[in-house]
């Protein structure tokens, strides 16, 4: 292999892919932490609230729905940018629904269950859609659903990084109320936290991050759920001033490692990233349930 060739591979494919993995790992882990603290539920995560499925539905409607249209409109609509917009719109529709419901329903556990049901609902709609779709479109959607860190161009990586970092900066003022929420909503309120406003703020950041991440790399399972647990276990604290940076660091490392494994070293094969994260994530969650009688936040 000539120098030019590997330089091309390294700078145009491998490095953007690694950066994408780092950004995705950081973003999903932070969203998972936000959800777990807000809902005081160790099983909360971006996919649990149905935000990921909402983004998925947006993409499904676009990819498979356009199959029913004429050839020209299809080419115009089936573009990377439109997929991005569709996913963000889908994520925010679900998020808006949850926001509206959370105004009526105070019980956070109920909101989690509603999130799961919304997820099931969108999966069902996707199922029905796929039944009426041509094989090509279905395959395109299926590939998106596997999750892929490798298809972003350099320019897209820049856009992706900017959005993720804006999200992170927006989290800084949340560190204090997130800590108060560790004591429950009543204590938090007594310490001066505006619960309603804080909840909305957290949900908007979580929705934005999940929508953008899902749009760029597809739904990636278990990172958001597992990384906050690993961070709390390793650093033995719930203090968000420590856990948030810890989660960002660990999330980046874990998805980077998962991506390296998915690349299947010494071979030309690439396994879907989602298969790897699930392969590690699912047993970890089971282990957590068995070994930790009490869930700690």
């Amino acid at each position, binding site marked *: 292999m000539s120098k030019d060739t590997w330089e091309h591979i390294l700078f145009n494919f491998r490095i953007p892919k690694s950066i994408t993995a780092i950004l995705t790992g950081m973003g999903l882990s932070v969203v998972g932490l936000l959800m777990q603290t807000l809902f*005081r539920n160790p099983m909360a995560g971006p996919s649990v609230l149905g935000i990921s499925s909402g983004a998925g539905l947006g993409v499904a409607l676009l990819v498979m729905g356009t199959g029913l249209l004429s050839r020209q409109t299809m080419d115009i609509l089936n573009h990377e940018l439109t997929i991005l917009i569709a996913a963000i719109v889908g994520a925010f529709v679900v998020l808006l629904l949850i926001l509206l419901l959370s105004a009526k329903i105070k019980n956070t556990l109920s909101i989690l269950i509603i999130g799961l049901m919304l997820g099931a609902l969108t999966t069902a709609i996707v199922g029905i859609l796929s039944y009426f779709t041509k094989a090509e479109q279905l395959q395109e959607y299926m590939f998106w659903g596997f999750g892929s860190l490798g298809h972003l161009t350099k320019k897209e990586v820049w856009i992706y990084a900017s959005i993720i970092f804006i999200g992170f900066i927006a989290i*800084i*003022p949340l*560190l*204090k109320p997130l*800590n*108060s929420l*560790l*004591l*429950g909503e*009543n*204590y938090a*309120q*007594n*310490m*001066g*936290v*505006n619960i309603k406003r804080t909840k909305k703020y957290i949900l908007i950041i979580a929705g934005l991050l999940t929508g953008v991440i899902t749009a760029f790399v597809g739904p990636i399972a278990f990172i958001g759920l597992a990384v906050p647990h690993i961070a*709390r276990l390793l650093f*033995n*604290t*719930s*203090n968000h*001033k420590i856990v948030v940076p810890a989660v960002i660091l660990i999330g980046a490392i874990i998805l980077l490692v998962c991506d390296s494994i998915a690349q299947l070293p010494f071979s030309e094969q690439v396994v879907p990233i989602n298969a790897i994260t699930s392969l590690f994530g699912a047993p970890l969650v089971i282990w957590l349930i068995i070994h930790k009688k*009490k*869930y*700690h*936040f």
Partner: protein
Amino acid sequence: MSSTQKNSILTTQNLCIGYPNKDANIEIATGLNLEINSGELIAVLGKNGSGKSTLIRTLAQMQAALNGKIFLHQKDITTYKREVLSQEISVVLTEKLPDNLLTAYELIVMGRQAHTNWLDTLNAIDKEKIDFAIQATNITSLLDKKFSELSDGQQQKVLIAKALAQDTPIIFLDEPTTHLDVHHRMETFLLLKELAHKYQKSIIMATHEIGLSVQMADELWILEKKSIHTGNSQDLIKNKIISQVFDSDLIQFNAEKASFEYK
């Protein structure tokens, strides 16, 4: 104490407490005209369901009053912003804290959130108040332990220390001695009494400990039949209010021993 001039902090005017309902509001107690002075330990007594917690929650602005007004420093309490109110009123609740990995120290420090900036950094005053809270409750040895691993009595002290660190003139406690043995119940009452008298805190607690309250509290509020009896122990015993409210076919109040016995 009684000779010193009374300094009223919080008063209520025809306060009606309870829960809103579509058809008709569920009134728990009504026509309450109460006064909280600084340096007072007030015990809120009453049978189960008489509205002790509802009263505490309403006064602490954790739920809305159905009717009537609450005045904090002569100003309608509903006009206070949450952030300002958090520097006036702190609470110790019955609810169990969600599981977390916070240490006792981290939890006490959180009391300062009512005063810290948006980044939650501690200044010299914050540290001073935290030290005071730790010393007043005598829990130096617990600071590095995880809150969730402490005994019920220790947890209660840490929560009181958190309320002290919050540095508010008023502290509300909802059944602070529920899970404690008799020694720790007495210890908690003594601590609260000392905090009220020594540091001029107004401490109001809902409790089932009639005997201890009669002995230790400066004032008793006894909820009964949607109304409230207030006064010091001697008066309420003399007027037979305590017997009238709490005596049943099983028990009667012995004024001399300040306790209940089997009939």
